[in-house]
């Protein structure tokens, strides 16, 4: 328990914590599911503010790759290779020490918390004081056009509103990189475009190296960045 | 004196008593004042049949008195069958738990006492040390010293007298039978109006014993142990003939019997039967008072007498509160507790004390007890017959089970 806290503290205040934007770097990354290789020797570097898209049919291991990067892979998988943020090797760090933000198809807002509590859950512990935290929350909500939503029940919001809250929650946790697991696919066309723009704008504004996986070419095009195919990487 | 030193003394006394108990505790260990002092602060687990609300309330009252007078905490462990307690003490002995047993005092008599005595599960003799034991009517109430033909030997303290009798609803029954054979004729005339709990329930067993005592060619044989199967068969033959004739006229045509003594009380009140067995001449009055039976209920006994016995309290060998148990046993024999026990308002059970040994004031208290509408006077209750030796009952129960229990 004690060592756990120490590690956390270390992470938040680590000497080489990225005060400036840093790239996400995957080196010779291989992934196996119960001994069966999903992909091997993947090399990929994403620069700060760059949005790279990874395309491929479902079941090809896109989501597993994201889980491997974020550290939430189930124990049935085995990973080899190195994942770096800047010069910092995070390959074996537990997910809470990696500072890698994730967005899924579903918003996954915690149903037992209000909008404000969901956001507060994301804000690092180092931001002390009720007032400071509330200010961050209000600022973020205003930014997203959701002023006054802090005390609302997530279940009463529209799909688009919930999706935006989920993005805010991730950004407030001050991630060093952003992983997007088809976060747009459940939204209808009009909402989708606006939301996409919202996410990309924020990713770029925060100078986050961003990896988007999708099977929708439209999504890929809208990033204006590199588009890779899973099959290209897999050799 | 500090609380700690009292605790230490109690502990030492407990250890000492445990020691002497192991080596056959024959004589009084210390005087009564010492025992009382040691009893203070002890918790007493009294295992007593808990099937009657009235008796439970009486025991609660005893608990209050023991706390006020002696600082003893009484916990009434309600048992369905006293044989459970015998079983538990045996389990403890099996596991080598020779001190700190779970039972400190047990309400007991008959077969259960015989079994505990035989297997060395009892503490004592201790009754001679109890001041109130001197007031017990050992001369006229023979069953206070011989429990079902087994000598008590100071291992259990008499608590109350029981005498087999019958309750009936006078609103429905005009004439009552006067003997076991008249009962047969009566039940032929009024079928389905009578039943008895199936043995080994003590009332059911007592009914069989009562029948055997009246029907046996030579009842004196019943006082000693069964020696030969042939004798058993010839002595009990009239009983089986009798039951074969009686059963078709019983409630449910003798195919089903009430599970317990108390269950037949509900049958009487519901009008399913018209005669109920009882071991307590005063209980009909008490039950009328508490609203459990109709006010038209009365009692009767047989002309030539009915079985009577005494019920006792005993202390298991591995009790950790033997002093408190002795103080409690003594209190139960006190005129105060006995008078309340005799009052049908609270219980209605005949006292074990000899009234003429009591002080004038105490005699006055006993004289003023209102015995109740349904209670027979001592004269009307008639002679008391002695229980047969337990070995008879053991075999009769088995035989009964073989004949009617399947």
């Amino acid at each position: 328990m004690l060592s756990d806290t120490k590690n956390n503290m270390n992470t938040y205040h680590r000497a080489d914590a990225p005060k400036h934007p840093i790239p996400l770097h995957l080196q010779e990354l291989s992934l196996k599911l119960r001994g069966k290789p999903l992909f091997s020797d993947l090399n990929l570097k994403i620069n700060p503010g760059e949005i790279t898209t990874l395309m491929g049919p479902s079941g090809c291991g896109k989501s597993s790759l994201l889980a491997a990067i974020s550290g939430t892979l189930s124990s049935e998988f085995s990973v080899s290779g190195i994942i770096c943020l800047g010069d910092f090797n995070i390959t074996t760090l537990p997910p809470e020490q990696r500072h890698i933000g994730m967005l899924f198809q579903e918003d996954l807002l915690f149903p037992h918390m209000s909008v404000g509590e969901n956001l507060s859950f994301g804000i690092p512990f180092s931001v002390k004081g009720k007032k400071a935290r509330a200010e961050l929350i209000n600022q973020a909500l205003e930014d997203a056009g959701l002023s006054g939503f802090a005390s609302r029940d997530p279940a009463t919001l529209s799909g688009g509103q919930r999706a935006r809250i989920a993005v805010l929650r991730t950004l407030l946790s001050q991630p060093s990189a952003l992983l997007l697991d088809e976060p747009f696919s459940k939204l209808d066309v009009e909402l989708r475009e606006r939301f996409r723009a919202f996410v990309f704008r924020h990713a770029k504004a925060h100078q986050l190296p961003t990896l988007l996986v999708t099977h929708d070419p439209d999504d890929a095009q809208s990033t204006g960045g590199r588009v890779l195919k899973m099959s290209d990487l897999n050799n | 004196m500090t609380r700690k030193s009292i605790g230490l003394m109690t502990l030492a006394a407990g250890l000492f008593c445990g020691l002497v108990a192991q080596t056959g505790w024959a004589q009084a260990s210390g005087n009564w004042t010492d025992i009382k002092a040691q009893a203070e602060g002890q918790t007493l687990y009294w295992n007593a049949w808990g099937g009657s609300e009235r008796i439970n309330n009486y025991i609660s009252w005893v608990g209050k008195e023991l706390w006020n007078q002696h600082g003893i905490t009484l916990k009434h462990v309600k048992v369905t069958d006293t044989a459970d307690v015998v079983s538990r003490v045996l389990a403890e002995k099996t596991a080598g738990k020779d001190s700190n047993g779970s039972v400190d005092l047990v309400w007991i008599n008959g077969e259960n006492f015989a079994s505990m005595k035989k297997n060395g599960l009892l503490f004592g003799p201790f009754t001679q040390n109890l001041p109130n034991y001197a007031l017990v009517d050992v001369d006229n109430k023979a069953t206070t010293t011989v429990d079902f033909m087994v000598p008590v030997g100071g291992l259990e303290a008499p608590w109350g007298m029981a005498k087999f009798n019958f309750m009936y609803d006078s609103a429905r029954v005009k004439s009552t039978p006067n003997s076991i054979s008249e009962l047969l004729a009566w039940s032929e005339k009024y079928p389905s109006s009578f039943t008895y709990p199936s043995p080994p329930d003590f009332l059911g067993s007592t009914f069989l014993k009562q029948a055997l005592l009246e029907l046996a060619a030579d009842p004196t044989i019943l006082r000693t142990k069964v020696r030969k199967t042939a004798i058993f068969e010839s002595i009990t033959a009239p009983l089986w003939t009798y039951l074969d004739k009686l059963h078709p006229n019983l409630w449910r045509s003798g195919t089903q019997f009430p599970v317990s003594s108390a269950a037949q009380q509900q049958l009487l009140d519901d009008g399913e039967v018209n005669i109920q067995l009882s071991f307590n001449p005063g209980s009909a009055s008490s039950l009328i008072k508490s609203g459990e039976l109709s006010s038209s209920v009365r009692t009767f006994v047989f002309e030539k007498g009915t079985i009577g016995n005494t019920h006792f309290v005993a202390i298991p060998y591995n009790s950790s509160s033997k002093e408190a148990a002795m103080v409690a046993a003594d209190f139960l024999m006190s005129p105060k507790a006995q008078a309340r026990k005799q009052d049908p308002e609270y219980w209605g059970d005949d006292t074990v004390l000899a009234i003429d040994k009591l002080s004038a004031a105490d005699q006055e208290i006993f004289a003023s007890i209102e015995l109740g509408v349904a209670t027979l006077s001592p004269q009307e209750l008639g002679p008391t017959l002695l229980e047969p030796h337990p070995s008879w009952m053991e075999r009769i129960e088995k035989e009964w089970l073989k004949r009617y229990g399947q």
Partner: protein
Amino acid sequence: MRDQAHTNQSLNRGRTTGVLCSDALGWLFSLRSMPVLTLLAFLGPVLAGLVSTLLPAFGYLPVIGGEELSFKPWAELFSHPALPHALLNTLTSGFAATIISLILAIGFVSAWQGTKSFQRVRTILAPILAIPHSALAIGLAFLIAPSGWIARLISPWATGWEMPPDVAIIHDPNGLSLILGLVIKETPYLLLMMIAALDQSEANQRLCLARTLGYKPVAAWIKAVLPIIYRQIRLPIFAVLAFSLSVVDVALILGPTTPPTLSILVLRWFYDPDLSYRTLAAAGAVLQLFVVIGAISMWCLGEVVISKASKPWLINGRRDLYESLVSAISKSAMKLIITAFLGSFTVILVWSFTRRWRYPDALPSVWSTQSWGSNLYNLFWSSSTTLAVGLASSVIAIILVVACLENEKRRGKSAGTGALWLLYVPLMIPQVSFLFGVQIVTIRLGIDSSWLSIIWSHLLFVLPYVFLSLSDPYRCQDDRYVGIALSLGASPARAFWRVRLPMLLRPLLFALAIGFAVSVAQYLPTLFAGGGRFSTLTTEAVNMAASGNRRVIGVYALLQALLPLLAFSAALGLPAFVFRNRRSLRGI
């Protein structure tokens, strides 16, 4: 420097095990051992108890002079006059209760699944599960006895019964009232287990498919769904069978008496003042175990035969299966069960406030609170004991189950987890077969008649049910919530306490209530582990049931029924209150 070392160390570990997440926490290590520890704590004593019963069954009981092994107790057992009939009683009541309950549950689900009355019945049946068997049996006895409420309500004007009819209804020699009492309790249980199984499988799609192929509801359900979900309800069926074959409290209240069922006979022998009966009792207890094992094997054999024999029938193309008959019978049976339940509950309530109520009055002639007032002290103590033991054992069970399930989530299925089905062993082994032995074991350990032994013995029966009720919601929870929490920077502990558990509040409280209800209902374990020193509402009610004083029995049975009902209301009401502003978790 330290970071460097940490990283290297982690890297090495990462390479060998590949477990990337959450290996830094000390408490995880203890979590890992939870399944094994839980199993040991539970199976050890059961095994020890069985051995302590087995030895006397072969004549080894030194305290009464039995020092060598022999078959004498067995010879005595098989020559005992009451045995054959008692065995027959046990088998008929056990199988009849199980088969009838199963048929009713299947009939009702197949005919009514998806309808409004199905939903309604589902909500009414839940409280029946909550109420202890013995309380229901007592109420039922008050209801159907020849002098019971039903007879009182219709007599003498309709029946002409000035006196209660002279027929054996309760304690009847064929055990019919025992079967009825069991069916009322077990049908809802099997029904709810079936519903749970349906929710997990793709039953609804299959059902829809069969319906679109022209199959009527009952035929569609029995031909297309039952074969799939049967596997999942097998364990509950075995539990019902084992329980019905070895039940003690219900059999004491409703079962036949001359002779009784085997379990009661064994209990009587154990309690016979003649201590030489102990070896006979032990042999009987072992026989009881074989009866249950044999019955379950018979059942399995029956399964094989039925599944073979029904193959051609399944595909013969017939699209209806006595549809209207099944739906009519199953619905009226459900109505009857619910009526019997409500009637039992009401009659207990009425008796508890009665002073005089003679046959054939429809209602008491004199009402009074005396049965409550004069028992206040005892009621208070037995209720507190019931509450304390119930809360302690269910909370401990929740902690152990959550630890096992969390371990499973974090490490994937391990051997310890896979063996967790062994937790059901205490439900399958007859209580009389090992509790006597357990009593000896607890005395040996010096923990008899203590809170420890009583809570632990309740835990044996509480834990399986808590596990049964919590495992599915726990396993089905979307792990991405915890994943998100972690990637937002929360430690595993924080993610567990702030995200995992609050989101599971409803199933957690429900499992707690089930555990509590199971604990409240325990009769024999309380008797044995408590050394008689602990009286709970159930031991009081069952002991009183023999006394025939319906007014006091009513008080105890009512409280005994109310406590679990309150627990369930709290389990439903609390999340509704806590999440009153959280629509997706409100539930009601």
